[in-house]
């Protein structure tokens, strides 16, 4: 069973979103379940800092040897940071999907969007359905 932290929000396409303490920054990554499905991650394509993205929009790509998946942004806003370390160490996505394996940070325009996302319980049901 994969690790699904209770404090995060999720998309059914396996991205997680964490509202940081400043109340307006959301950090985005992919879940433990997603990295497990993909296998060894070899490359991550990230959005450009400064780009405006909308919730549900493609914001990047994550690649393993045998698969590639689009990354969708769970929230709308401006990209204020991307995890440049993934360029040289994509394996961090596998090793620490919720910590050093984060993808990008968004300065959100509408905090209500977070309420529309899945909570840990709802997301774990998505994962279980995947396993069947």
């Amino acid at each position, binding site marked *: 069973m994969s690790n699904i932290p209770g404090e995060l929000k999720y998309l059914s396409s396996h991205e997680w979103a964490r509202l940081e303490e400043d109340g307006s920054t959301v950090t985005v990554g992919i879940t433990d379940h997603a990295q497990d499905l993909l296998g*060894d991650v*070899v*490359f991550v394509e990230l959005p450009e800092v400064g780009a405006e993205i909308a919730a549900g929009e493609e914001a990047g790509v994550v*690649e393993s*040897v045998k698969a590639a998946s689009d990354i969708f942004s769970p929230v709308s806003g401006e990209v204020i940071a991307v995890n440049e370390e993934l360029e040289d160490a*994509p*394996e961090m996505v596998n090793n620490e999907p919720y910590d050093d394996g984060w993808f990008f940070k968004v300065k959100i325009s509408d905090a209500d969007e977070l309420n529309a996302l899945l909570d840990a319980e709802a997301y774990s049901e998505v994962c279980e359905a995947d396993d069947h």
Partner: protein
Amino acid sequence: MLIFEKGAPGRLAHSQVPQTEHELDLPESVQRKRPPALPEVSELQAVRHFTNLSRKNFSIDTQFYPLGSCTMKYNPRGAHRAASLPGFLGRHPLAPASHSQGYLSCVYELQEILKEVTGMAGVSLCPMAGAQGEFAGVAMIKAYHEARNDFARTEIIVPEAAHGTNPATAVMCGYKVKEIPVKADGDVDLAALKEAVGPQTAGIMMTNPSTCGVFERQIEQISKTVHDAGGLLYYDGANLNAILGKVRPGDMGFDVLHMNLHKTFATPHGGGGPGSGPVAVGKRLLPYLPTPIVGKQDQDGQQRYHWLDDQALPESIGRLSAFMGNAGIILRAYVYAVLLGREGLHRVGEYSTLNANYMAKLMENAGFKLAYPGRRATHEFIVTLNKQAKELGVTAMDFAKRLLDYGYHAPTTYFPLLVPECFLIEPTETESIEELEGFVKAMKAIQKEAEDSAELVTGAPFTQPVRRLDDVKAARELDVAYQPASAS
């Protein structure tokens, strides 16, 4: 060891080098400062190096190669010899028709033969591979709609079992892709198709027999559904070998198709190409065929062949290569058709289907699970090793690698994507019954190993030049070109 590491500075294959005293009449600013780091070896060193490399390959000439969807049949040496005649090899692609009648006559006759075997109205041999044939076909569909001022058609429908080239092609032609499901018996979900079609439908791309290794039985309803919605039907000829001489795409209702001459017409695969992917069309799409094609005229009782280019076909989708596709492959396919003749072409579909059904039955009798047990196999069939993966921890990949140790090239693995842990097995008509039985025997032996000593299978191969390779390292620490020690 790489060829670069075998040389020595200043070594040269002297008899391959022209003498010249001419001074370069070129400005300094465009002249190369340092020579390119090419190998510096003797002729013998080069010959030995590449001969030895060749021995590290499986090939049709050396092994049974039942790669599903790839039609790895015998490539007649006679076709290669004929296409390599000096008159053909030395002909410049822009040579005048006066010095091209031999080549043009072969091209013309192949166009006619392909029209007949597909039941279509016109053929262009330009596309250089199946994927380029697909591109040409969908581009023609687009040209057809647009010529009728119908710009609302923005979608191409693709069954989910399709080759990845189908959706990729539709996008290259500027279309959106709509995937529709395939039912448990391998046929397209007709209800979903009916739901999907509409005024936005440009067409559907289909393979028949499908990638599931079964014949799509509802093809006439599919054809009617799409045509009624104003769309056109594209036939992906990947599996034409199964039905060659038995049923023609034109008679099934298709408007356009491509063929893979490197599959159905036995031209060599060359380690990944060159292929050739001619397109054939019904009457509606004739004006849009890619150029050039070859025409024939009666001149004072003599047949004269000539090029038809974009002046002759002003509505053509245009050129796809600098000249006219993979000419040498076209010649080989022509020779193959000449050697087989009318009767031989009929037998291709028959015996490829016989071989696949026999092998499928032997596999089933040996306890392997067929993905579509109630159906006739076509020229290929699918076995799923899902049970072995779950119960023994031995995957389709492991079986594939162990087959190499038994001297067989593995079938296609993990395709189509909708059948888990699958093998897509295509024996082709040119294999003997002994070879088919030998393969099944090897599969039985591997099954036994998987049960008794799984590491023999999961650790395979053991007899090849290398063991399993680290694909993750290859992708993470990308090394795609040799760096000479001095440069690093």
